[in-house]
């Protein structure tokens, strides 16, 4: 039972970050109908900025803030300089442009910072707190839960309670109509990219210290799983991304703990297949899937 609890909590902590990463993919999908393959590389780039700032100042929180700001800027930059001009004639083109950016960013990071791994400090201890002989949650896990939770609530409030959120949603779902009503769709699109990139930046910053360390390829695997999570949850659904993230995290942990680490990619494939056969547009998708 202890082991079950341990594996579950460990999976939830990892799943929370996957959820955050998936959320960043969902935001772009909703705003622009694009799956951004460069998201992982962009997030790693911002983490390098955080790493540099933290190393220079010795302050984790300054690093965190700079990563989020850098995420906003980088997202807007990518939209304004590349994605805007890709055009909508073929959904493939945005995928390929994303892949091109992925290669450029990873290679640039390799050239600037080198290919080696760099250890990243955590602001809180990662040693689990023992409660009644059962140790499961570490302060850092709690920090992850709180960060992701705050982010989800913040985004939900932004999208549902503010006029900015309304304009964002309007220009995503009915850009022409929104434009007629005075919403500056193009600006909203840039904002969507910036938001998404900032969310991705935060997710990468949270997960990299629990992985091997900072490296241009640090979140390659995380990106693949996050994409899977977004698909499991339904690309249109923010709630689906969160639930899907937690579910995939826990399944990964259980399979790893009870069946063997080798099987985890197969388990993800089976989970994905099962979900997609039952609900081809993801577990939580409310609308009928679109053909993009």
């Amino acid at each position, binding site marked *: 039972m202890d082991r079950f609890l341990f594996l579950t909590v460990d999976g939830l902590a990892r799943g929370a970050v996957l959820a955050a990463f998936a959320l960043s993919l969902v935001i772009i999908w909703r705003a622009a109908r694009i799956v951004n393959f460069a998201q992982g590389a962009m997030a790693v780039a911002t983490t390098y900025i955080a790493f540099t700032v933290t190393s220079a100042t010795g302050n984790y929180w300054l690093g965190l803030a700079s990563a989020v700001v850098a995420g906003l800027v980088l997202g807007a930059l990518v939209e304004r300089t590349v994605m805007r001009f890709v055009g909508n004639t073929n*959904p493939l083109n945005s995928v390929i442009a994303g892949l091109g950016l992925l290669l450029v960013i990873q290679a640039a990071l390799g050239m600037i910072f080198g290919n080696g791994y760099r250890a990243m400090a955590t602001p809180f201890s990662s040693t689990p707190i023992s409660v009644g002989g059962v140790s499961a949650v570490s302060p850092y896990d709690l920090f992850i839960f709180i960060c992701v939770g705050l982010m989800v609530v913040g985004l939900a409030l932004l999208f549902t309670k503010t006029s900015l959120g309304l304009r964002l949603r309007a220009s995503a779902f009915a850009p022409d109509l929104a434009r007629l009503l005075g919403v500056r769709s193009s600006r909203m699109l840039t904002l969507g990219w910036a938001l998404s990139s900032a969310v991705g930046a935060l997710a990468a910053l949270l997960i990299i210290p629990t992985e091997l360390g900072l490296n241009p390829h640090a979140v390659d695997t995380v990106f*693949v799983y996050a994409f899977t999570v977004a698909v499991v949850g339904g690309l249109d659904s923010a709630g689906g991304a969160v639930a899907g993230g937690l579910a995939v995290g826990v399944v990964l942990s259980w399979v790893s703990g009870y069946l063997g680490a080798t099987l985890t990619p197969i388990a993800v494939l089976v989970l994905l297949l099962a979900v997609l056969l039952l609900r081809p547009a993801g577990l939580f998708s409310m609308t009928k899937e679109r053909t993009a």
Partner: protein
Amino acid sequence: MRPLTPLVSLLLAAAAAAALIGLTFVVEPFRSYQLATACAYLCAVAGLTLLTGAGGQLSLGQAALMAAGAYSYALSANALAGAGVEGALLLLVPLGASILGASILGVVIGCAAGRLHGPYLAGFTLALVVAIPAVTSTFSAVLGGDQGLWITVEKRPTALRGTVSNEQWQAWLAIICAVAVMVVLNNLLRGRFGRQLRAVRDNDAAASLSGVNAARTKIISFTVSAAAAGLGGGLLAYVTQSASPGAYSLVLSLYLLMAAVIGGIGSLTGAVWGALIMVFLPYAVNTFTANLPVSADVAARLDGNLAVAVFGTILVLVILLAPRGIQGLITAAGRRFRARFPPGQSPSNPASAVVPVPQSRPSAETPSSGTQAPATETGTPPSGTLSTTKGQR
């Protein structure tokens, strides 16, 4: 222009194969090897052109199907060699097995993925290709784990040894297979199946209403694409004498897709450009960077990374400046040339020079066939007849 009968098209294909085979006599063995790998990749890229270009189904799993082909080749070749089989049988049966093995996986994926659209299909095929190393590790007794399988291959016939290098022989086999794949896929795309595929891509509800079985069409397209990729994988296994999970990674899948798009996903000719770029561009860039006069420290940072950066930049530029790929550029250039100098007229004919050619609507024959075809093609919506506009989607 003269109409082209299947016989003539076969003759042309044979001529192309003969020309390429002749080429292997004048180039160095390493070029032959590159040509062989380009042909192997061409099979997979052409399969992707059919599936994604004409069928509109975004698959990131082409490497998994190549892997299925490569492992089928390896297992059957080793089994045959173990049983003492030699000669042409040891060459042809494994190639057949690679097509069969990948086709079976293609049917399975097609059945599962036929209902999925766009990013959902991409997500599923992504998870599939990522699971390959896990599959080979789990069944390492049969599939050889991370290290993969070594293959006993039938080398070139004894009569050719001394006159023909091993690389040349490998290139011949790959050229013949690739040309065969191109002929088959070309005929499929030009025929009824191609029209159905495009109809389903453009509007599957409308296609179903007009009597096209959308699900069946999708499954067939997956299977055909898988068979082509499987043959490519089998060829790669033959040429490299090995099948290992590292060779069929997500990166290969992404590169195959990039090759198809850069070449021009609208046509099979684009696949030729794509496969060539896949082999020769990284090679050219690496050769270039290796000769840059920089210090040891800078060289260590640039090594490898610069090539990746250049490749990525070219990719982004192609998408921004020539979204229909190289073949799109060539078609447009050809059209502009013809518009300025129409055949049979004097080059200075002002009438044709001033007629602007619409950039977004290629295919010079569209006006005639586009208006008449709906009347004759009863079962297909009009958009299905725009056989050369598939790259626009």
